[in-house]
């Protein structure tokens, strides 16, 4: 029997003085993962952007539960996007989307 894939959902909040688009956030996080862990490491994360609200500057990212610390470190390592200083906070982590929404009240 195939083992069930365990995932983790991360709620993120982007702190920036200017508005950041979804494309910019996705590129920044992927670049951070690639910079810290390389292509081999990035392939293990199974990173996917579930949603991003550019007005409220929050989003949800999904990754493999084994790569949670890698993704957390990568997300935290983003300090600028297109020359604009930013900080990305992880508001909460959960195993299901429903629990995550409940936890961080999105």
């Amino acid at each position, binding site marked *: 029997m195939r083992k069930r894939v365990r995932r983790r959902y991360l709620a993120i909040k982007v702190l920036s003085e200017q508005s950041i688009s979804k494309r910019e956030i996705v590129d920044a996080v992927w670049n951070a993962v690639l910079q810290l862990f390389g292509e081999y490491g990035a392939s293990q994360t199974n990173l996917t952007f579930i949603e991003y609200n550019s007005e409220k500057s929050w989003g949800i990212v999904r990754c493999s539960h084994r790569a949670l*610390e890698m993704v957390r470190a990568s997300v935290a*390592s983003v300090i600028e996007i297109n020359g604009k*200083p930013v900080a990305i906070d992880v508001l909460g982590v959960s195993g299901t989307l429903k629990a995550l929404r409940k936890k961080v009240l999105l």
Partner: protein
Amino acid sequence: MKRFADLHLQPSVKDSDQVQQMVSRSSELGYRLVGMPLPPNVTRDKVRQLKGICKDVGIDLVTRLDLTSKTPRQLLHELRHFRRSFEVISVVCTSKAVARQAAKDRRVDLLSFPATSSRGRFFDHAEAELASQALSSLEVDVAQLLSSNGFLRIRLLSTLRKEVAIAKKFGVPVAISSGATNVHFMRGPYDCAAFASLFGMAVPLALRAVSETPLTIVERNREKLSPDFVAPGIRLVRRKKGCASV
């Protein structure tokens, strides 16, 4: 629930707005105690004002002094002068002689090393052995890792991995701080712990480095600085009115 502490928040102390901004963000990130390096000649009114700002957002402020002495003799002189005025003393070890003196002195709480060059880091076996006997901790600033990239970050991660392994071997506590000079370099305790996994610290150990280790340092020093402190393990419990002072 864990209480988290960030012993190295570096706003410009003269700029109250920046202090307010950074302290509020610390509170949002889940910290309950922050340390700010202050100038040696800071006035009591300034400290009271800063403590007031922190108290408004539910944060406990720890006064900290960063010593950047050039010689061991100068370090001893500065420790003699300032130890009783600050709750935490950190020594930025710029030379091997200063690093050794700081590691063996019980008045030093934190040993920090400049990130700019790997040759400027003197945390080796001898240093760790001295530090383990004197109860000083190794401080790692997350901002150093955030602000560097490419080859510099690779070198820094490699050096930190070696230092953390040595610290673990000799039982030297590691304290992880933000070292942030603005709000964009501030990260939550769990993010700092995730960062620490990059240089070989397991997550439980890294969480201890942002909670128990700094809290223990502050608790120990506050007890020592309290007027009721007599000697390690002995403190004044009660004063009787009729007792004549010695």
